[in-house]
């Protein structure tokens, strides 16, 4: 059973703390993504990575950074957490290779609900 695992389901942090959200996938996927989801705003892309040590900014990278030292692991870092970063964070992975005769499918983790107080 393919799996994308996020390290925490719920997390509470204080304003100003450095926060690490970890994501691990076991499918040998090249592409990995971090999103945040807020009511009424859908999923918004923060960063994505298409290879080890590679990263690209998404639509809302401000206040975040990422690390991809190994293919299976993609970390989202909040350098100094703020209350407006309280949100649901979702990690996903996909392969760029054509596996279905067409496009490819992305797999998501269960999400981390982060509360910054």
């Amino acid at each position: 059973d393919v799996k994308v695992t996020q390290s925490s389901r719920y997390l509470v942090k204080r304003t100003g703390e450095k926060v690490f959200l970890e994501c691990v996938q076991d499918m040998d996927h090249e592409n990995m993504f971090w999103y945040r989801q807020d009511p009424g705003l859908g999923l918004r892309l923060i960063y994505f990575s298409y290879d080890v040590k590679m990263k690209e900014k998404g639509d809302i990278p401000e206040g975040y950074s990422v690390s991809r030292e190994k293919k299976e692991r993609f970390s989202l870092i909040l350098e100094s957490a703020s209350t407006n970063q309280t949100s649901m964070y979702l990690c996903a992975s996909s392969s760029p290779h054509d596996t279905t005769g067409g496009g490819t499918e992305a797999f998501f983790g269960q999400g981390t609900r982060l509360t910054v107080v």
Partner: protein
Amino acid sequence: LAKTTQPISMDSYEGQEVNITCSHNNIATNDYITWYQQFPSQGPRFIIQGYKTKVTNEVASLFIPADRKSSTLSLPRVSLSDTAVYYCLVGDMGGNTPLVFGKGTRLSVIA
């Protein structure tokens, strides 16, 4: 990346067929159309994907007209458990392409 437009919400009674249409006027030649489903407090999951004409699997059907500027997700005989948010994505899905989600369509199935 092609922008998508879909209704914000839809209601349906159990047992009915539900059709959710997505507009993507700027779709590129290499782009596929993919739909995801998301239940509360869970990550989205892949439902169906197509390039042109019609695709059917055990969960849904996807209708794509010849000009590919829109697509329709069809859910046959919905049940209460189909209540979810449905997202339409357009992109080549390969290589170094980010997955960009819109706000999706919130489907509410009523008994």
